[in-house]
């Protein structure tokens, strides 16, 4: 680099030789990427092409029926029905976030006890491993697949849907909560320990108040996600807007689909607004 030309040096750019990690990453990533697109194109062969004039007509008539004149007319008892379905959807989401929140907050100390204990006993270590594995597993499987299993045990309805949603979100909130507890300053907990506080007392008095604001943010963030997902969990759990929408689509009652879509978007926006207001109040 002993060149006298400063300009050259400022703009000199030595390309890094990719290391083994980058080479494996590129060597696997690019073939997977190409193979995936090839797969999609091959699979689409023989199916109706997505972009064709005929399809444009179909889409136009579909949209025309979903948001057509019939959508805004209530023929008899349909508008109240949509309202009841909407309340079912909201109730399912509230039960789901309540269950997920309570279980993760109660079980979080098991996942983080390893830190409190300098000696990190056998029990604390295995608690950590089991809880982390549980968080990962419940999180990896989507709500809908959990719902398929849950309806085997719980009779279909809003509670079955709520449990399926709660299982997945238990993993999400548990992981986020455990991460934020582990990045806490330990001083208050150590101080409590020196006064002889038990581990339960240390968690309730020392840890929870410090993470409560973050936990609240996570809970509201997940509630917003749950509200959107409730509609599709309804497919399996046989309740709420999603179930009715799927039924209406298969019966070609497109005007009802339009009303349900509007109700769905309104609920999503309401929860967004609510969570903004609450976060402001608890700031």
């Amino acid at each position, binding site marked *: 680099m002993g060149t006298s030309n400063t300009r050259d040096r400022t703009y000199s750019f030595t390309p890094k030789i990719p290391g083994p*990690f980058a080479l494996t*990453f590129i060597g696997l990533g690019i073939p*997977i*990427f190409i193979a*995936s*697109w090839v*797969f*999609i194109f091959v*699979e*689409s062969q023989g*199916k*109706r*092409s*997505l972009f064709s004039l005929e*399809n444009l007509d*179909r*889409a136009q008539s*579909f*949209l025309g029926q979903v948001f057509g004149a019939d959508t805004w007319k209530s023929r008899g008892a349909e508008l109240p029905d949509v309202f009841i379905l909407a309340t079912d959807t*909201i*109730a*399912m989401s*509230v*039960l789901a976030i*309540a269950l997920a929140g309570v279980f993760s907050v109660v079980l979080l100390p098991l996942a983080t006890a390893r830190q409190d204990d300098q000696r990190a006993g056998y029990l604390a270590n295995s608690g950590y491993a089991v809880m982390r594995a549980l968080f*990962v*597993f419940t999180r*990896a*499987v*989507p709500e*809908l*697949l959990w719902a*398929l*299993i849950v309806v*085997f*045990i*719980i*009779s279909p*309805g*809003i*509670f079955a849907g709520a449990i399926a949603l709660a299982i997945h979100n238990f993993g999400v909130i548990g992981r986020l909560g455990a991460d934020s507890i582990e990045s806490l300053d330990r001083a208050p907990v150590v101080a409590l320990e020196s006064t002889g506080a038990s581990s339960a007392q240390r968690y309730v008095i020392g840890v929870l108040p410090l993470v409560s604001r973050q936990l609240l943010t996570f809970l509201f963030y997940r509630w917003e996600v749950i509200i*959107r*997902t409730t*509609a*599709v969990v309804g*497919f399996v759990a046989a309740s709420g807007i999603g179930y009715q*929408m*799927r039924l209406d*689509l298969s019966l070609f009652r*497109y005007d009802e*689909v339009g009303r349900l*879509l509007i109700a*769905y978007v309104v609920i*999503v*926006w309401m929860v967004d607004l609510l969570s903004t*207001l*609450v976060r*402001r*109040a*608890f700031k």
Partner: protein
Amino acid sequence: MISMITNLLENRRVWILFFAALLMWSASPVDWVNLTNEGAGSAIRSIVGSFLAPDLSPKTMGEVIQAMWITLAYAVTALSLAIFFGLPLGLIASGVLSTDQRFVLALAVFVRAYLGMIRSIHELIWALLFVSAFGLSPAAGIIAIALPYSGIIGRIFAERLQDVPEGHITACQVSGASGLKLIALARIPTVLPDTISYLFYRFECAIRTASVLSFIGLGGIGFQVHIAMSDLKFETVATLFYSLLALILIVGLIGRSVRKRLLT
């Protein structure tokens, strides 16, 4: 009157009462007496037993690996579409393209509203609508996932671009950069590591979503779960769940090491 409402909205006790009431109201329609199906006890036992001893026979494993590949292919194509459209839209929505041109700001507001709309509808609802409008095809499935995902990616990218510390921008301005150069040399490099690790998180989400495309009639892990459930083959269901876990763990591990490498 208005100040009373604002005070009420900022009172924590009011909110706690509100949510307690909401929870009671939500729990009231549940039929607590007939909560479980008949024979729930034995169903739980056989499900838990299957998860402890999943079906690992070569025939099942072959099907599971094929299902994993289909799910991965849907996730990769959907996510690449979402990134292709989401990042440029996010760049426009951030409003950093110009400082005070009215047109650019109006465009930003418009794009932000569009991104908000497409992400407020769940990907499977999009999928159902697409299938009704266009008919069933893998393309409909991946576009249905790509739409809300581009909305989320665009929003996150826009927020990150806006939050770039002033120092980074000033440093580039001092050395003579302006306009688009500032975006390319100050804003984007600052947000790149975080954005890439966020995209890996979205990849995990895309795998989860792609696994349930069976609900509109496309193949993959969810489709095999459906079949296994209707045959009451819980051992196969367990294998499929674990295969989903494996896919997501691998993506998570790669994401974490890429992030580590980008930050050092």
